[in-house]
């Protein structure tokens, strides 16, 4: 189980690099709650895009959901992964992969 707090630190994200075709929805509270914003996907060009988070999200992100096309060729469908800093009250929806921590 991945845990945002362990990997990067809760309320610690300030910038992102996102691959073409991928997006991330950021939440200011654990369990996919609080303020939210979605970044991406870029539909043109190649490679990734880079973003600095605006006030209100800079160093405020506690959970996020990433959506994109799996790099695993055996998984042809769109996949959604979720990461959050609190496992409380969260159950991954069908088609999602849930990651929870403390």
């Amino acid at each position, binding site marked *: 189980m991945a845990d945002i707090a362990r990997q990067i630190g809760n309320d*610690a994200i300030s910038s992102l690099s996102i691959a073409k075709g991928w997006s991330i929805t950021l939440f200011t509270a654990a369990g996919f709650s609080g303020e939210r914003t979605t970044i991406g996907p870029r539909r043109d060009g190649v490679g990734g895009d880079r973003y600095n988070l605006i006030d209100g999200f800079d160093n405020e992100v506690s959970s996020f959901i990433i959506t994109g096309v799996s790099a695993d060729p055996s998984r042809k469908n769109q996949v959604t992964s979720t990461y959050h800093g609190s496992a409380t009250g969260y159950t991954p929806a069908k088609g999602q992969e849930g990651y929870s921590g403390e």
Partner: protein
Amino acid sequence: MGIKDKTFVNKTLDDKAFADKLMGDKALADELIAGLLAAESPVDLDLAKLVMALYDKRGTFHEGMTGLEHRAARDEDLASFLEVILTNQVIETLRAESEAATKAADAEMILNPTSGVYVFTDRNCKGKHAGFAGGRA
């Protein structure tokens, strides 16, 4: 590849005090050479570099060191050992180059990912980072 290969010799002696002492102390020089000859892989590269740097200055230091060249000419074990040092140095250089290339590739990947999202603790995609994709991170 010869033992006088300039690409091997460390041009700078960081431990000048030790080098000076070594050049004036035959017993220490002999002990060091004996230690090197007895060393088993992996070779102490730092020590070997120091010895070889001194060796490269033959004629200016203790005969115990200048004698290394003559000993190597007739001592197969010594010559083999010196060859090991040279080979290790080449391996070390290649490893360092490979590591640098890997770091450069990793840096490029996290800034321009082809899959997934990287998050960073500092602005402009710097600082501590973690990558997330469709699979488990």
